[in-house]
């Protein structure tokens, strides 16, 4: 397992196709936070995010096994693109777009502790997490998408434009307003705290 962790994404894919089931597990674990983070911030519902996460990787596994994967060196953006399409498919089927679920309680499972924390530290971490999530969720969906695609999906603007079916200038415009709005929200939060 330790040796597998040192392999690149492409090497893990080759290893998986060569018969090592552990390789795909290492690959999925490596990217699980980013892929799940992207899905969760778009659909805003943990259960649905987990369903889409599973569907995404089932599709990834099937594509890899069929030999049609061609995205050399671009594994994560490819995964996020599939996750994005599945999320959009879901909303199309449901005939609705995600809305802010104000009644949804913050889940302790959202936090990935980096270290052992005492009760007070856990509370602070939880509060920070909740505040940041609230700020990002306040952004319009198109702006949120661009922001999280760049952060979680490590996608460039050309890829984001392609996935979201807009021009690169539109993707850049959305990023511009996402950054401006997020900064305003952060400043407003600081004013409230002070």
């Amino acid at each position: 397992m330790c040796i597998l962790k040192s392999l690149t994404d492409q090497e893990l894919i080759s290893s998986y196709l060569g018969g090592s089931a552990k390789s795909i597990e290492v690959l999925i674990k490596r990217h699980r936070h980013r892929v799940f983070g992207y899905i969760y911030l778009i659909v805003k519902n943990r259960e649905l995010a987990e369903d889409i996460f599973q569907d995404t990787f089932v599709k990834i596994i099937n594509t890899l096994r069929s030999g049609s994967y061609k995205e050399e060196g671009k594994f994560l953006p490819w995964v996020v693109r599939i996750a994005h399409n599945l999320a959009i498919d879901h909303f199309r089927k449901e005939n609705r777009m995600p809305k802010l679920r104000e009644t949804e309680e913050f889940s302790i499972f959202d936090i990935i502790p980096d270290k052992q924390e005492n009760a007070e530290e856990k509370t602070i971490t939880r509060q920070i997490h909740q505040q940041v999530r609230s700020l990002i969720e306040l952004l319009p969906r198109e702006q949120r998408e661009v922001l999280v695609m760049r952060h979680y999906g490590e996608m460039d603007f050309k890829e984001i434009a392609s996935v979201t079916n807009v021009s690169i200038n539109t993707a850049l415009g959305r990023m511009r307003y996402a950054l401006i709005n997020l900064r305003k929200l952060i400043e407003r939060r600081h004013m409230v705290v002070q």
Partner: protein
Amino acid sequence: MKQQVTFNELLLFACNETSLSDTVRVETALSADPVLRETFRDIIINIQAAEREISKISYAPGEECLSKVFNYSRLVGGV
């Protein structure tokens, strides 16, 4: 003469996504135009603020969710 650089080009430049020729063009424009430098500084501050905020949080699927994916991968192939 000041070079024309759009806001979107500045944003691309800030994200290291400009072509070599555009990079040179934006750098030249920035060195000649203090107003453009101020706009660029704002872009960098906004990007850094967003990165700082997003980096404070992390998400992960539950163990059961991961297990289902791993089970599927074992089912369809691999040792």
